[in-house]
């Protein structure tokens, strides 16, 4: 089932502008893969008109979790939902991160910046399940921007945090923290989601150290299902580059397929 109009908000947790929603939706929970996303209607009617894309933060047989930061009207409305409220969700959508038996015993870095941490909990869990040795990097501006650190710790992941202002963990950019750790020992694989500059910097670090890397991209999405051509990034394919729909071919791409120069800052 790809449209769940009977999803229901089970519980919410909030930290400042950040929200975690636990949602009852067996159909989504059973089919979602790490790095996939859903399109959720914030409110009935025409304002906001479009659904909003949110990564699957975790999934299980009963439903999914979403984790987001309030960025504008849509997410603000979602943040105001109460347990029991019905939710109208399309998904799971897109192609997620690689999780395969081939990573058994391998070291994988999962790097999240700000709200970009969202897909990495599910990912880390599935990677660990596949036998990978996962290190989670979690960067934020201040300690208030890394609200999920307890959740990752409680789940038993090796977690390295950074804050720009040094209020928690490593003082500086998460990319520098990752750089330091790569220096100490190269991982076999790297997965990241976060602001474009962060991912761009990580991509070049990964390239330099020849670490295969995957990145989850963002874009304003009209439909999430490949119908509008609104969500394109510049992606390499067959020698050339083209505007590629990230909702369909992504949002996760190998670092070497993303034409970083054409995009972001």
């Amino acid at each position, binding site marked *: 089932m790809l*449209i769940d109009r009977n999803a229901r908000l089970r519980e919410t947790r909030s930290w400042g502008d950040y929200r975690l929603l636990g949602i009852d939706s067996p159909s989504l929970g059973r089919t979602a893969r790490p790095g996939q996303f859903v399109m959720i209607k914030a409110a009935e009617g*025409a304002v*906001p*008109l479009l659904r909003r894309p949110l990564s699957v933060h975790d999934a299980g047989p009963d439903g999914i979790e979403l984790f987001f930061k309030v960025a504008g009207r849509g997410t603000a409305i979602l943040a105001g939902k109460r347990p029991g409220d019905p939710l109208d969700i399309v998904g799971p959508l897109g192609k997620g991160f690689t999780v395969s038996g081939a990573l058994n015993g391998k070291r994988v870095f999962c790097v999240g910046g700000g709200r970009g941490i969202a897909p990495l909990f599910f990912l880390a869990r599935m990677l660990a399940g596949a036998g990978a040795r996962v290190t989670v990097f979690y960067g934020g501006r201040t300690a208030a921007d890394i609200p999920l650190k307890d959740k990752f710790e409680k789940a038993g992941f090796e977690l390295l945090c950074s804050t720009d202002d040094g209020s928690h963990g490593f003082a500086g950019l998460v990319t520098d923290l990752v750089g330091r750790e790569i220096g100490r020992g190269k991982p076999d694989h790297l997965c990241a989601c976060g602001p474009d500059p962060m991912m761009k910097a990580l991509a070049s670090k990964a390239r330099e150290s020849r670490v295969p890397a995957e990145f989850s991209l963002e874009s304003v999405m009209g439909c999430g*299902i490949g*119908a509008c051509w*609104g969500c394109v990034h510049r992606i390499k394919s067959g020698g050339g580059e083209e505007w590629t729909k990230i909702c369909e071919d992504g949002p996760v791409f190998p670092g070497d397929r993303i034409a970083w120069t054409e995009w972001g800052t």
Partner: protein
Amino acid sequence: MIDLAADLGFLKLKNPVLAASGTFGYGSEFEPYFDLAKLGGFVVKGLYYGPREGNRPPRLVETTGGLINAIGLQGVGVQAFSEKILPKIRGRGTAVLVNVCGADDDEYVAVVEFLDAHEGIAAYELNISCPNVKKEGLCPALSPRTTARLVGRVKDASKRPVIVKLSPNVTDVVEIARAAEDAGADGIALVNTFLAMAVDLETRRPKLANVFGGLSGPAVKPIALRMVYQVASRARVPVIGMGGIMTGTDALEFLVAGASAVEVGTANFVDPDAAVRILREIEEWCGAHGVSRVRDIVGTLEIG
């Protein structure tokens, strides 16, 4: 049982609900959501002769009740379309229409001539009205002269019926419709998107890389409905109405105003199954109101 059939003369549709070009991908994107055979038909994304890059992103901005897009008609071109896409979508029990684009008259003709050699297309929808490709929305549909010339050339070349899709960015849409009709158009579709713009106050730059884009969605419905009524109440050829149709009620209003069929656009983004829901709502309304044939309500608006 309500008789849902729509009759465009040159084309019978099983029902009056089509999916609009550029909002329905190449059709297959929607197969996970419903059986395409449920639709009256769908219009594939605008097709140039060759593949097209489209505009740089950002390509979309949401506005109050609307969406501005500046996709710039990214597409695969006729060759890839006929080889890779058409075989997957033809013969599926629903009418496939191709939205035909061109940088000049010759390209439109070339697209039609190329496609004429391929099976499985019910009609062409001539997109002479996309506001996102030339500077400040220029397009043939802004003048009766360029409309007539282009329509004439394409009609001469085409083996299939030609529906001409008009722009709402004109002073007198009836004049343009008449030009299209006189030049041989088999049907008229309207409206395409409204030339629009959004500004990011913080950066003081346009929100779209293309500066201008086309506005669609419920915000524009009252203007679109007016234009469809103006054209349909005078046209000799059938009219396909669109612009902001989100519900069965919206669709029925366009039919009452004179459209023989409707296209659903932006709504497909909001709900992948919007078109079939709209069809179901039309059917329910007809049932509840004792209308046994949907086409009987076309153009029944009473004025005065």
